[in-house]
């Protein structure tokens, strides 16, 4: 059980949602946007957070879209990982979604929650960092649409009260060559020791990682090394590893072991 009370709101519009948020903010109290809820419930249960209100955004139409037009695939922030996988519209994102938590949880976890939550791995971000995705954000000044990689620096940079509404994937990315490899310490279902996602554009590899650092990242330096056609592939991989710099060193894996895994992952990816 959650050992304290909070208020629950289920707005029908973005404006209603932000009004509730601002109302609590004005009172100096914390309200949280709530979608799949798995992380918020867990953190409330163990006493890490104590929001005064949760604002369930799952009934807001703009957050529920999932469709493709001529230019973009549009994904609402409350679409679940299961919905995105099942739609099979963006194969690389499908692969990312399919390896987050387990299948039952994928039916609840939303893409917005995966991006905005506190768990550092945020594996759906990998696909978005690679494909020139854009996002729509709603806040007190209305809508703003920005490139995902300009708004995501270790975490999604949102102003107070803003919420992620939807994600827009350029159609070229939906059919581009891609690869996804996730390495875990023991079980298949686990946080990543290393997840690498790659997308090819104009025969050039774009690559992003989760688990390598404390945040998901697309590394232009590593991409440049891997795309350096003046070198043989093994030399490119060695150069890429040199570019990786200081990687995570924790109880899951030492930094040298992570680099060892990175080397083999890159070999696998470049062979494929």
């Amino acid at each position, binding site marked *: 059980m959650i050992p304290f009370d909070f208020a629950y709101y289920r707005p029908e519009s973005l404006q209603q949602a932000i009004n509730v948020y601002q109302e609590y903010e004005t009172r100096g109290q914390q309200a949280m946007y709530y979608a799949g809820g798995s992380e918020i*419930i867990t953190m409330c249960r163990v006493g890490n957070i104590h929001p005064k209100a949760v604002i369930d955004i799952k009934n807001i139409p703009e957050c529920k879209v999932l469709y493709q037009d001529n230019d973009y695939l549009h994904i609402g922030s409350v679409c679940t990982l299961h919905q995105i996988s099942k739609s099979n519209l963006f194969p690389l994102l499908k692969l990312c979604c399919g390896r987050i938590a387990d299948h039952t949880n994928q*039916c609840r976890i939303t893409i917005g929650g995966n991006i905005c939550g506190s768990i550092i791995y945020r594996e759906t971000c990998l696909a978005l960092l690679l494909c020139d995705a854009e996002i729509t954000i709603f806040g007190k000044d209305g809508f703003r649409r920005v490139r995902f990689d300009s708004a995501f620096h270790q975490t999604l940079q949102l102003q107070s009260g803003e919420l992620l509404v939807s994600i827009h994937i350029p159609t070229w990315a939906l059919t581009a060559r891609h690869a996804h490899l996730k390495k875990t310490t023991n079980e298949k279902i686990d946080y990543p020791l290393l997840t690498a996602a790659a997308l090819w554009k104009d025969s050039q590899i774009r690559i992003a990682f989760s688990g390598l650092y404390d945040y998901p990242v697309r590394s232009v330096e590593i991409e440049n090394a891997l795309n350096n056609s003046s070198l043989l592939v093994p030399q490119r991989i060695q150069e890429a590893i040199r570019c990786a710099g200081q990687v995570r060193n924790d109880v899951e894996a030492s930094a040298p072991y992570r680099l060892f895994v990175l080397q083999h992952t890159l070999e696998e990816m470049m062979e494929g």
Partner: protein
Amino acid sequence: MVKYEQKVVVRLQVNNETYEVAVRPSDLLLDVLREQLGLTSPKPGCLNGDCGACTIVVDGLPAKSCLMLAVEAEGHSVLTVEGLNGSAPIQKAFIDANAFQCGYCTSGFLMVCHALQMQYPTMPEECVVEEWLQSNLCRCTSYNEIRKAVHILYHQQDNKYQK
């Protein structure tokens, strides 16, 4: 806009019956099912979404009831093992496969398998079965028997259609 600031009476659709229950907005669906509706098939295990012992079916998909607020279930169709009435094909398949030892995980596995059958009326690829079953833990390690039960489930169904 739905607005619940204190304890409130909500209508829940569980096992094709409508219940009116008084809940706090922060009450978990698992606790409400067990303690207020007396439906004890969803089991408290890890309470963290890892073990799957509390799995129920919501609108045809599996959900871990320890990670869902009771107020969120309003307007949705909830199914627990009690709603299978002892007559669901997956229940017979579990018996035929001896797919349990201590039984604590069984109701969660039953609901995952039942939802699998709802989503895939014919036998899906083995990797799909594996993916769905991986959501639940069985510490008695009856995994082979549970997988066998899924095969029996679809085999029984095929035979039924052939007749």
